[in-house]
């Protein structure tokens, strides 16, 4: 259910009060929010750094192009990652 509820036209963005930043101690990317810190894996970082008003479909296309990857496989990964972050209220869809 979770992976199919997000439409290709949804526009993911960071939720209110959430900041994406590089942790200068580790060089890794982190999400900062009230009273919490989440370290992102590479996939989540690549996706979130492209959440700038684009739709989910556009983000997948962009990633497929940059990494010469199969967009069907990518779509599932992107949906999984985004729905996980949405469940934790770190991103929202417009």
């Amino acid at each position: 259910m979770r992976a199919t509820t997000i439409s290709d036209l949804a526009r993911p963005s960071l939720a209110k009060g959430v900041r994406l930043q590089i942790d200068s101690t580790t060089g890794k990317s982190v999400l900062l929010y009230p009273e919490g810190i989440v370290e992102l894996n590479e996939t989540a970082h690549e996706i979130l750094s492209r959440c700038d008003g684009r739709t989910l479909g556009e983000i997948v296309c962009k990633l497929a192009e940059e990494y010469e990857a199969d967009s069907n496989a990518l779509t599932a990964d992107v949906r999984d990652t985004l729905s996980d972050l949405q469940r934790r209220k770190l991103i929202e869809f417009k």
Partner: protein
Amino acid sequence: MTVPRPYALLAEITYRCPLHCPYCSNPVTVESAVPSGQQADPTALRTAHATANNGELTTEEWKQVIREAATLGVLQIGFSGGEPLARRDLAELIRAAREAKLYTNLITSGIGLDDDRVRALRDAGLDSIQLSFQSDESSLADEIAGSRAHERKLGVAAKIRAAGIPLSLNFVIHRRNIDRLPQIIDLTEALGAERVELANVQFYGWAFRNRAALLPTRKQVDRARDIATAAKARLAGKIDIFYVLPDYYETRPKPCLNGWGQRYLTINPTGNVLPCPTASSAIPALSFENVRTRDLDWIWRESESFNRFRGTEWMPEPCRSCPQREIDFGGCRCQAALLTGNAANTDPVCEFSPNRASVDAVLRDVNSSSDAPRHWTYRTNPTSLAALL
């Protein structure tokens, strides 16, 4: 031992506060935390400032400490107190924290937050505000705060929303307000907060002194747990509810700080650096370093106070051989000190602690006596931090 990097700094920028909540975790008496070396400070200006500010760190001293914290690895700063709005330089400190790329959170009673100030804090880059409430309506809330604060707080919540700053609410839950949990949750919804902490009082500072009046009964606790669980399910996706259990009623201790000197540090108004905000009052045997005489990196890595309970080497039995030792870290050092007289003991909340009887005796007393509210002592502001200057 490998010393980890800290993630979050709690900056207690002042102990001054217009509220007098009887559960405040601030020290009951503030022994001047200013080290004796301060008198020999060659910078006349700095000493003059310190005196003028009642011993509190100056703006420039805080800005320096904030930069040192960021270099050390800190990613988040909470401005707290006392009431942090009592410092007129708060926006300047928030700006300095944002320049150091820290996530900034203001932990406040809201008293003193007018439209201009909200805008100034937002423009300085404040990321989030945690606003405290004492209950859901004025008569009880004001009685708890020892001040006519509730109506003003409602106005402040609206101002924060209007300024677009993410809002969390915090309610300290205790014997006198725990039965109002449904109404408290309703208020959170009505005020449009994104998250709420319903935190049962933990017994340190003023709360330890007022424990008999604040500790809820088992019946109250059971009911509150059900209400919080139901509200969490009902409001999922809308409001994040964090319900903090009253640990005296638990059988395993809380994983305090995720381990001593592992992730968090606190700096108090006079610049003492503490592994935990309540350590200075709860553990008199421990002495703390001050940012006026040592740099933060050294204090975090090398100081006796941060290394005393770091890791698992210090642990006595039953913690030493316990499979939970890397999960709950033996519980809370301050609680061990307050209830057993020795901070190195297992937290007596733990069912395996040889001192669990001390907690059970308190519970027996609370659960066997009448429901009539008992007297508490209101928190008073420290009269002088500068006594030793």
